[in-house]
């Protein structure tokens, strides 16, 4: 078992201070995304909103969920579903929007 035994002693316990910083960042990003939504950037609207949301999601995952301190297996299984989701969306997109439209 030596290769993957997990010792409680080395476990990282995040301080309240770190959490507050992350929380503050999340709140600032929330304000930004709401504020920005009143400005029209055209097609960029979705991109900006999703970009901000992804930064927020990353902050939640890395710090609140401690992903930053997890082993590589956890990283693989945290990221792989995202890759699959990306695949599902893009490939379905490719199919749906490349179909020949017959008048």
């Amino acid at each position: 078992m030596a290769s993957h035994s997990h010792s409680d002693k080395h476990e990282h316990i995040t301080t309240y201070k770190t959490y507050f910083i992350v929380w503050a960042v999340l709140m600032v990003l929330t304000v930004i995304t709401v504020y920005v939504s009143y400005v029209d950037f055209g097609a960029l609207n979705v991109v900006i909103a999703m970009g901000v949301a992804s930064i927020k999601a990353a902050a939640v995952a890395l710090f609140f969920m401690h992903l930053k301190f997890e082993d590589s297996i956890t990283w693989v299984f945290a990221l792989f579903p995202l890759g699959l989701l990306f695949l599902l969306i893009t490939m379905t997109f490719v199919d749906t929007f490349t179909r020949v439209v017959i008048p």
Partner: protein
Amino acid sequence: MTWIPEVASNLASKVDGVLFVITVLSLIFFLLITAILIIFAVKYRRKRDNEETPYITGSEPLEIIWTVIPSILLIALFVYGFVVYKEMRNPPADAVDITVTGKQWLWTFDYYNGKKTLNELYVEQNIPVRMVMISDDVLHSFFIPGFRVKQDVLPGRYVQLWFTPTKIGTFDIFCAEYCGTGHSVMLGKVNVLSPEAYDIWEHGLPGGQGQAVASLPPAELGEKIYKEKGCNACHSIDGSTLVGPSFKGVFGHTVELADGSKVEADENYIRESILEPQAKIVKGFQPVMPSFKGILSDEEVTAVIAYIKTLK
């Protein structure tokens, strides 16, 4: 019995080419593996209980060989299949258009010349045809094995398919996508006519005479229509219940409708049921029958009624 339906369109021989190449390659691999399997199983069969075997764990050269060779062959097959497919997907500019509508469980064909047929498709030999297809209800799939063409027919979106018929004759049209109770009777025929015959079909005989009028007695003509126009998909003649009520013994009997009222099944009732099926729905059945207005002539409706009268 033949291996494969006879080649009846320009595309068919090309598809058969792909099929042939894959068959040959598959056979080679299949026979190779089977032969090795049998030879090994016989030759190295255990004779004594404590035979010595060598400790062979693998071979990188072999591993590479049997990865690379199939990969190359597979990519070649992919390219071949794609090239033919590309041709199948792109109709020539001079193709004539026929609109196909699939509905449970029949095909209607609307021609560029204003004609309309049901389950029977008429095309001219060596003239490319583009079928523009849509479904009225669920998914269907328009499949002519003799032409090696198939295309799912979707509701709410037009799709297309093309071919140039090369052989005079009559070929099967199947619905290949499951579409409900009558799926297996959603059958049609494609009639490939010679230019002369097609001209007669299109314009009638020279001398202004109409289309060759069927000289059958009404009841027999009705039976023919019953089978060819898809009535048999939903209406049995032996009393069994399919999607719609059976024709057996229906004439002259009183029918209970969905709203509880009763009506006698006379000539006018049957005529109305054919032309405006939603007007009176028989109790216990769904209002799914399409209208045959414009598809059957008055004469043909009369013939169907005559046929129903014979089904006691």
